[in-house]
């Protein structure tokens, strides 16, 4: 493996930071070199957030070059679209279908675009698109707040990750509060299973 790049795109408050950190911890557990970039402060307040995770022996910079994402993990459809520049035909786009409407839409009296329309635009970059109904799976696991962990599970479910699934699970265990551990483990498993099941359909 030369390098493996994951871009996590979402809205402030969706837990992208925790997901990115879990990936970083898993890489260190597996003895790999890794860089994770984050944005804090002003940029987090309900605004668009992007974290990048780069794994590989020679990786120095923490940000990903345009077109070089191996996986674009979209926590929200519009934010996935906003970060398509990181994708190319080799990229797998793994996207949560949960829509969070920017306030601009309501103010201008515009409806949120159809997710199918967004998927069509993503396909202009790559044919490899997979959708995850994270809110449904998170609720099934016990909390709507566990969507980020559902998505981590989905990442593991792709079978493409350079880190071991058990390392990722153990990273999640380190990061989530003890009392929500069961919910999060369940969320991870459901996310993982959902991809393994739908692998063929896309």
């Amino acid at each position, binding site marked *: 493996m030369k390098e493996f790049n994951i871009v996590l795109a979402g809205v402030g408050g969706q837990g992208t930071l925790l997901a990115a950190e879990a990936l970083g911890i898993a890489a260190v557990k597996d003895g790999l070199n890794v860089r*994770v970039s984050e944005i804090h402060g002003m940029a987090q307040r309900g605004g668009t957030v992007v974290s990048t995770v780069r794994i590989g022996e020679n990786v120095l910079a923490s940000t990903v070059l*345009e077109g070089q994402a191996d996986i674009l993990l979209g926590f929200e459809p519009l934010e996935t679209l906003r970060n398509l520049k990181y994708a*190319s035909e080799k990229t797998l786009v793994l996207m949560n279908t949960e829509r969070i409407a920017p306030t601009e839409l309501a103010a201008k009296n515009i*409806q949120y675009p159809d997710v199918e329309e967004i998927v069509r635009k993503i396909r202009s970059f790559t044919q490899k698109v997979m959708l995850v109904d994270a809110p449904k799976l998170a609720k099934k696991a016990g909390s709507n707040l566990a969507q980020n962990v559902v998505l981590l599970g989905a990442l593991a479910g792709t079978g493409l990750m350079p880190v071991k699934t058990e390392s990722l699970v153990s990273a999640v265990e380190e990061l989530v509060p003890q009392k929500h551990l069961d919910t999060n483990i369940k969320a991870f498993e459901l996310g993982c299973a959902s991809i393994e099941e739908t692998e063929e359909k896309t």
Partner: protein
Amino acid sequence: MPDLKILLEDAPRKRVLLLGNEAIARGILEAGISVVTTYPGTPASEIGDSISEIAKEAGLYMEYSVNEMVAVQVAAGAANSGVKSLTAMKHVGLNVAADMVMTLAYVGVRGGYVIVTADDPECYSSQNEQDSRFYALLSNLPCLEPSNPHEAKEMTVTAIEISEKLELPVLLRTTTRVSHTRGPVQYGKVVKPNLRGDFIRDMKRLVMVPAFSRPKHDVLLRKVAEAKQVSETSSYNEVVKRGGEIGIISSGSAFNYAVEAANLIDLDAGFLKLGMTHPLPEKMIAKFLQSYRKVVIVEELEPYLEMQIKAIAKDHAPNVEISGKMTGDFFPRQGEFSTRLVAIGLSKITGKSVLIDFQKISEKFAEATKGLPSRPPILCAGCPHRASYFVIKKVGGETAVYPDDIGCYALGISPPLNVGDIMICMGASVGTAQGISKTTGRVTIATLGDSTFFHAAIPGLINAVYNNSRIVVAVLDNQATAMTGHQPHPGTGTTGMQTPAEKILVEKVAEGCGVKYVRVVDPFKTREATAVLKEALRQPGPSVVVFRSPCTLMDLREKRRMGIKIVRAKITDKCTNCMACIKLLGCPAIFLDNKVAIDENTCTGCGLCISICPYKAIEGSCAE
């Protein structure tokens, strides 16, 4: 966030994933630093926050100081009592502290002392993108510049060693991409802190009256010469790769991009990596310049290295061609760098082609994202500032002027609130308001937060009383330094050591400053707050209205902890779809699903929409 207790482990050689700022916190423990002072500010906040979490157990003292100037003063007192100290701040914090820092360089320190300043190229969370390395030149202080979290930790320890050797404060300058990058960090040994200092009276050394300052300036210049020797032999200044068709000199994050960019365009280059960037290792640089016909300087923000390296070249390598941002315009002086940006610059300089067609990606991307709605940062659902601004705008209308300040409430500039007419630096709302009010005679309402009030607004308020300026100062008091992560401040009743403290109230301070009209309101009681603000506007002199309600993020966390159920707002069938809630509030929980709807996951039940709905069509709990 993982348990920060991991920072305490005395496990040399252990490899841990840490944020750059957490790595500096670990460096603090490995350096045996015993006093840590800070004022929070992105991208530096997690240094102080990490230490605050572990200070008691680690046996060191930390404080959130009222501002960066005071933070440096406290630490300088400790360091001049022989105790190893560190102060952390964001880049603009160094401007606040500058008066102290400039002369502290003359005085020096007896214990080691490090000042961490985190620059923010691209203004991710800042009002400017100044290059703080120039403070090193200006003050003559040594400066270290890490490029990744592991180096950030190592350099914290080295900075203390240099500081002890030279008896000078040392700057440790990071950028957002170092402070907010996570990477593997290898632990060294933890050194037990020693908080016990002794103050030795020495007027010639410590009292900077002119007669004592003059000789101390000479002392400082001698120390710079000594620091240059340190720089020449520092392992952080290193030719990491020799040979190649051109030489590249770089530092910090820019070094990472430069190496990856050279690989990307298949450029065989030699690299001089600079980690100690003041004073520069002149001999080492001269030797590097002499081995090439062409040298490229790759650095973010200002041509700080380039200016000095050109001066070195004039004496030692006059024929070498130096490219960067002063000659040829290959790299910009503004914004954050990326591997792409550096690759394109290097390609222009060397004629090597970039193998990725970035232009094509950009065009395709522009096509796919045409008409994509923006999503700027906004006030959170349930944020009390939304209620405050709703009231302020209702009273002041379009004719009033609204000087604004640094903090979450700066997000009030977004539609539909549109409050905020001039915003420059911490505390400036109160000062600028006075000049505007005096010269225009317009109603002037300054808005600022509680932490900002204590940090920098009190002299401005006293000035308003003294010079009788007719302004209203609206303090949006959400009981925390919210934007940077809810750190405590003098008004919260808690310290950085997580112990109880005297709770200093904004209204008492305002009264003490001589303000005659001071009131406290609950912003969610919009009718009462409106009446009070109107009365404040009628005062002949300055008035202060404190809009007090806790940050909704803290409040929700507390409610969740206590098991208090949140009563969320619900649209009833009385809704006529008049859109008043959307047009007046811009709350992210309210959206359009053919008609107005409230997102149950986002709504915090603050009740503001309930109190403003003209048709009483929203149900739930409401303060009024």
